[in-house]
């Protein structure tokens, strides 16, 4: 297959494309269709483009543009009555695009920089110092006031707006014993962005797991799960990360691998597909997928044993796309939140709609991402909730930034932090109440 958009190495599969009966039921679920109202930026249209590519249409700039514009939010998957596996189709398509299509120089530089930085926890952590200085020195406020910020390229402006106020980072120990009876030994993924920008969430996750009877293994030096690479079609890079992570957690000998970032979890659950050609790793990848759980999934599965203290707050829960659509995890986080006495849970209108964060989408496509972020924030504000809870660091940053932009700063936090506060009986989001044990200080 030389003519046409795709080569023979895993093109989007014709059999999967054939499952699409062109009914259009997926259209209203698709954020880009909602924004632009055009067929080629809908799931049905993208599938049609894949088909055209298989039939000989070249991988043109416009075709690539419509694949790139897809957020990968997977809202179209549960919306499809025919069971079209859009996730697999777009993953295979993106890998082809990355391999076979040469982007403009500026795009290549931008992507190069992003992929130099984000999948490397150590590089991200190294940025914490300068960032904290930037936030505390008043430079950030000055840049904003003088409107100098507006002169920066869009991607940098977005990055600047996303960064949360940094809190102290605690180095987590490699082993946290289970409190009460031990029900499982779990390995914990600390992630890249979560670890560098939301260290509290990781600390809370470890404490909650321990309180719920899990011994937590936190392998030092664990790398990136490869989610960003995988979701951007950088197949080789994703495979390298995946193999290393499988090695790392296989060596840890755990019952489960627990993830508190939806994007990472969904990528890890794709390892079996990613490594399907690797005879050595394929079976291990399948076993790895079997053991991988989102934190909410595992806690709901095990059932609570730690008593909850009341939290008298009204919160809104935001479904991260990579939890709700990609992993079908909707009820578990809600169930866990409902079980907290005093807590009122509200639902956000247009809950299925992506907030625009979508991995690195907001850095590559700032305009639509911001529109979606603002739409999500506006919907959220109608609930009257003062706290937003979600299961993905990208969503947290994106929605918080939009809410700030609309002049309604919000407390955005993670499910694990809410559960941690309830279990320990402390108010939510009071960093000073975070215990320093069992970890030691480290910046």
């Amino acid at each position, binding site marked *: 297959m030389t003519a046409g958009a795709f080569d023979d190495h895993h093109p989007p599969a014709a059999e999967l494309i054939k499952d699409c009966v*062109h*009914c259009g039921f997926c259209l209203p679920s698709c954020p880009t269709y909602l924004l632009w*109202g*055009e*067929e*080629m930026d809908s799931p049905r249209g993208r599938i049609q*483009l894949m088909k055209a590519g298989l039939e000989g249409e070249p991988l043109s700039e416009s075709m690539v543009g419509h694949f790139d514009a897809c957020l990968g939010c997977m809202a179209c998957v549960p919306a499809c009555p025919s069971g079209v596996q859009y996730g697999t189709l777009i993953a295979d398509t993106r890998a082809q695009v990355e391999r076979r299509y040469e982007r403009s120089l500026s795009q290549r530089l931008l992507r190069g920089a992003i992929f130099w930085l984000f999948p490397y926890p150590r590089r991200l952590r190294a940025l914490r110092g300068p960032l904290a200085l930037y936030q505390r020195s008043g430079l950030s406020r000055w840049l904003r006031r003088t409107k100098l910020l507006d002169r920066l390229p869009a991607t940098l402006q977005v990055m600047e707006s996303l960064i949360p106020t940094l809190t102290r980072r605690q180095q987590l120990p490699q082993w946290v014993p289970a409190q009460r009876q031990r029900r499982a030994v779990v390995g914990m993924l600390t992630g890249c962005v979560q670890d560098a920008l939301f260290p509290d969430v990781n600390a809370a996750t470890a404490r909650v797991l321990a309180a719920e009877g899990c011994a937590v293994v936190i392998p030092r030096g664990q790398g990136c799960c490869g989610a960003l690479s995988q979701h951007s079609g950088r197949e080789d890079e994703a495979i390298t990360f995946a193999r290393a992570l499988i090695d790392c957690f296989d060596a840890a000998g755990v019952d489960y691998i627990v993830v508190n970032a939806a994007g990472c979890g969904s990528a890890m659950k794709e390892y079996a597909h990613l490594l399907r050609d690797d005879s050595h790793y394929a079976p291990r990848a399948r076993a790895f997928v079997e053991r991988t759980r989102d934190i909410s999934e595992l806690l709901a599965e095990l059932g609570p044993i730690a008593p909850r203290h009341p939290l008298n707050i009204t919160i809104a829960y935001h479904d991260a796309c990579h939890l709700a659509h990609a992993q079908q995890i909707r009820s578990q986080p809600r169930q866990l939140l409902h079980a907290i006495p005093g807590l009122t849970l509200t639902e956000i209108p247009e809950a299925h709609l992506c907030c625009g964060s979508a991995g690195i989408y907001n850095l590559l496509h700032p305009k639509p991402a911001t529109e979606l972020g603002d739409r999500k924030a506006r919907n959220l504000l109608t609930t009257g909730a003062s706290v937003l809870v979600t299961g993905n660091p990208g969503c947290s940053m994106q929605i918080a930034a939009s809410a700030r932009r609309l002049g309604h700063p919000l407390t955005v936090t993670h499910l694990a932090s809410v559960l941690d506060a309830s279990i320990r009986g402390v108010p939510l989001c009071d960093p000073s109440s975070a215990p320093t044990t069992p970890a030691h200080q480290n910046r």
Partner: protein
Amino acid sequence: MTYRGAKLAVLAAELSAVVGPDGVIADRQRLRTYECDGLAQYRVVPGLVVLPESAEQVVAVVRACAALGVAFVARGSGTGLSGGALPHAEGVLIVTSRMRRILEVDPANERAIVEPGVINLDVTKAAEPYGWYFAPDPSSQQVCSVGGNVAENSGGAHCLKYGFTTHHVLGVEVVTPEGELVWLGGTTRDVAGYDLLGAFIGSEGTLGIATKIVVRLMRTPESVRCLLAAFPGVDEAGAAVSAIIADGVTPAAIEMMDALAIEAAEAAVACGYPEGAGAVLIVELDGPAAEVEHTFAAVRQHCTAAGAFEIRVARDADERARFWKGRKSAFAAVGRISPDYIVQDGVIPRTVLPDVLRRITELSAGTGVRVANVFHAGDGNLHPLVLFDEAKPGEAQAAEQLSGAILDLCISYGGSITGEHGVGIDKACHMPRMFTTDDLDVMQRLRRAFDPAGICNPGKVFPTPRLCGEVPGKRKGVHPLQAAGLAEQF
């Protein structure tokens, strides 16, 4: 560049001045995403696609087409099942997906005004807070546009009691094929003069483009009860339907699915219908609570008497939605049990339902082509789903033949070739089986009164020699209308 190609290039430039450059699509790959609607076996890549954002833009686009004599076709969400929105290779496809504002919700006057690209279900969502809703509920209501509903006179499960789109539209703002902006009907229940609105609704995009629609809203019923009854087979279920109607009950909906359709729905949405059912009925009653309670008991009794082996009553809105989920996703769900299928749409008098179903079963057994049945049983509107695998030689043709035979069956029992999906391109050739030449000529004259140049969705609804080949009804010689200079064959 051909002469026609040159025309399109001129048009593309003119139209970008009207709708802006990102409202005109001329690149082949992008155009290909518009090559078909919900009936994917017919494909034509449009010459151009335009995405207007207002009625004024539609006027300008249509005028530009009319000035150059270029054909145009309207498209809403592209879910039509008769190829009505199939593009014209040398024409312009005018897509309403950017005209999706709900302009007014006016419960006091029981109406809402919407743009044509608004999604059917969004009208109900907007009216719901006031206690009102938009009654036409095609299974595709989560995606199809109100403009498409008007063009197809769409119906849904609840047509039995509430009627089709035509009963819920008070007025339409239309851009005529000559580019005039006119109102048909109005904002009130009845207007003086000929019922041009009635002619427009169901005209399948051949009389102009709707740019605003005044829809009638209905009050959300005080009480809704829904049951799911499982029967050993379609005969028993059909008998239950007849008994219920004969008793003078008008349910809001009675829907039937046979075993194969149930299997597909289970595979797609795990709707959890009773196991071992050869047919299920979904019966819904709505209205004042006291009345509903009373008739609900009668319905249960009729189902049991006809042989239902299990009856489930929806306890709450969630369970009711689950009952409906299987039914509403049935068409698309058939994709789970068969690589390809034809969604047929025919109407028969309700009383002959068991006979016709038996004949369909015989046809299916005789040819080995599987048929799943889903229908609006109360209306006698059948939706046989004819299954085949295109990859297997001969299967597509056998399915096509069976599907045609089912339509003949409907006609022979005094029914119709379409209940709600329209004629479009798919059934144009069947029209002469239902209508005489005179009938068709009268229709053609009406069409020409709106569209003298024959540029508005040409080639749809009426048989054309090129489309239909040797099918019955093909005329010989010059048509009298043509000879009189009143019409052209197109």
